[in-house]
């Protein structure tokens, strides 16, 4: 089985982001970037399949600027065999949206014919959570999103819902799976593996050379920070609380 894994270079989860001065985007200057945490989980799942001898080849694909190659290198260090880098200077946190990404990935799928495509359920910058589903639709193949466990033998996936999990079955491969938090705990990229990953191959192409219309149809008008949280106040008694809830907060 050949597996294709999507990895996205995003702002590191621990960074306190700020809005750029022009209020059109988040300020990314000098900000630490890392692999999207859900993509790490996707990579881990694929690597485990290879270790269980259920997959023969894992390809890591990323769409992003020149530095996204480092993200692919991390995926290679975790155990992927080779990488594909579609370069673009468009902002991948807002200009290049899920539909464009899905269309680009669909082109890669046509070329590489993987049996399974594993993506993260969402990226922590755009937070759309749509790419996996859109990709499946473009390819007209099954989709199992928010996967907590994937069983390739039984062809079932346990998916996360707001009230617990449900088990769904997929009829056939190829199919798209998106990784949720509980799917696995990603491994560390060790130093020996990072050294070995330097020798693995990454194919680089320009994203706009694939013949895909990269226009989202959306424009970001403004990016702003949420209003600062106001301090709480002490009330003297229950009546005071009810009064505030009724007359000030307007929730009663």
């Amino acid at each position, binding site marked *: 089985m050949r597996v294709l894994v999507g990895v996205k270079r995003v702002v*590191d*989860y*621990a*960074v*306190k982001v*700020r809005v750029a001065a022009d209020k059109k985007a988040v300020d990314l200057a*000098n*900000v*630490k970037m*890392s692999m999207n945490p859900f993509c790490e989980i996707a990579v881990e799942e694929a690597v485990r399949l290879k270790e269980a001898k259920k997959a023969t080849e894992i390809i890591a694909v990323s769409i992003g600027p020149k530095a996204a190659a480092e993200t692919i290198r991390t995926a290679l260090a975790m155990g992927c065999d080779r990488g594909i880098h579609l370069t673009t200077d468009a902002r991948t946190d807002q200009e290049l949206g899920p539909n464009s990404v899905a269309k680009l990935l669909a082109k890669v799928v046509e070329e590489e014919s993987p049996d399974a495509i594993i993506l993260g359920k969402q990226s922590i910058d755009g937070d759309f959570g749509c790419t996996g589903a859109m990709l499946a639709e473009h390819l007209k193949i099954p989709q199992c999103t928010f996967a907590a466990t994937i069983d390739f033998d039984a062809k079932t996936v346990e998916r996360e819902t707001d009230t617990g999990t449900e088990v769904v079955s997929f009829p056939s491969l190829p199919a798209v799976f998106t990784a949720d938090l509980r799917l696995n*705990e*990603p*491994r*560390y990229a*060790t*130093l*020996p593996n*990072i*050294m070995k990953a330097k020798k693995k191959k990454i194919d680089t192409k320009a994203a706009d050379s694939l013949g895909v219309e990269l226009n989202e149809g959306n424009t970001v008008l403004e990016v702003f920070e949420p209003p600062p949280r106001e301090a709480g106040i002490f009330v003297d008694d229950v009546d005071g609380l009810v009064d505030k809830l009724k007359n000030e907060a307007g929730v009663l």
Partner: protein
Amino acid sequence: MPYDVLIVGAGPAGLAAAIRLKQLAIENEKDISICVLEKGAEVGSHILSGNVFEPRALDELFPDWRSMDDRPPVDTSVKEDKFLALTETGSVEIPNFLLPSQLHNDGNYIISLNQLVRWMGTKAEELEIEVFAGFAASEVLYDEEGAVKGIATRDVGIGKDGVPKATFERGMELRARQTLFAEGARGSCSEEVMEKFNLRDGVQPQTYGIGVKEVWEIPEENCNPGFVQHTLGWPLQHGPLDQTFGGSFLYHMAPNTILIGFVIGLDYENPYINPYREFQRWKHHPEISKHLEGGECVSYGARVLNEGGFHAIPKLTFPGGALIGCSAGFLNSVKIKGSHTAIKSGMVAAEALYPKLVEKEEFICCESYEISEDEKPQEVVEYQTAMEESWVYDELKEVRNCHAAFHWGFLPGLAYSGLAAHILKGKEPWTLENPTPDSAKTKPADQYSEIVYPKPDGVFSFDLLTNLARSGTAHNDDQPAHLRIKYSLKSLVDSNESLKTYAGPEQRFCPAGVYEYHEDSASGDKKLVINAQNCVHCKCCSIKMPHEYIKWTVPEGAGGPNYAMM
């Protein structure tokens, strides 16, 4: 995986050494393999410094840096140099001509050392030096004769309870013919190596200062690029004979940045001093707050600096390697500059090591991919000699007694520094003794009363945890605490000795709020809590903790602060 040279720490000294070695390899057409290890997530993540930069060493490393297409971020020339003695509400300007020449900054630049180091990192990668960030050197490796043969990186995937998890990965051994330790001040491997090889025999103990820094973005029209200001006096020194060493810095960097910070000598005696809160309250002084009007604090961090100067420099070499940069301790505490000497020391080490490494071609790892059994680990003493003959030692010798003079009080100290700078130039026949380590300087709390600091206003001053979020500090929290209580001192900690005698100064000197005493709900006793995941890797606790009961060890690689503009 063996290398010709392994460098621990991708800071100014480490990268300068790596770059210089490769320059020599290219010049002489004999390549050697170099590996640089960095515990921060990226090159630069752990770099913090004022910084008014003397370009002397950069001129030597990259003579054409000013005309490079991708020139280093060294742009803001110093235009104005102010020195103020502050009182609670006012200030007195000390005219420039009274100040020692070391404090004159013509020809120097206001920079972000962080950005410069990142630039050096890209240069190193261009030269095909292998730089691995996110890996911490936790163990020094020795051969049968006790020579250093490399380091091992830290095991990862161990849970908070000390039990290996499913993600456990053993660290990797990196062997090298020469290992350079460039970990910065109070480096964990460096301290071990200094003890093992008795490198500190006959020299004074190293003394330190804690530097706490913020970066502010202000409206561009208010920025005066090239403005340098240092202050003494309020709030730290209350009178001319006050022995607490320290002061502030405030620099304007193009186009709209203010670099602002406070340094306090860790030889302070009053256990109630809170360096972070001294810094916060100082910002409210009208001479200071006027610079911050309309601005936003975007970054915060802290790091210790060496203050021992010339007399605290250890022996630099040992079989199998050497110490470079602040790990050895070349900071000029009168100039308040150490980046230029760190870079120079890296270059001098490279120039001493290279010929030794390529002397016998059959030993070069780059070709053979192995370290020959026939080669005994060398001790490149030529590095020590070359340093002693370099301008680094010249300038450190001139100010060798200055820091100790501050033990008479800050005005006498200042006067002595002036005398030393203009007349004595280090040639005085006496050496002011400084035999006491910082931790032993703290006096019992019953001799002092608690200092009441003002509450932060959220505009100019901030509470610690709000500021800490601006350092980008993150550690994988399911790992054992890296701040270890020394086993021999465990009973001291169990009995709360630090709290009883010194009122728990660790609650105050740690700039990241790591150490707290919580009341146990059952017994009502106070218990030490170590919030290791807050740690900004400043090393203050390993220095100032009463009885030095904390051993600073490396956490999992890639943890710690993530400084960008520092």
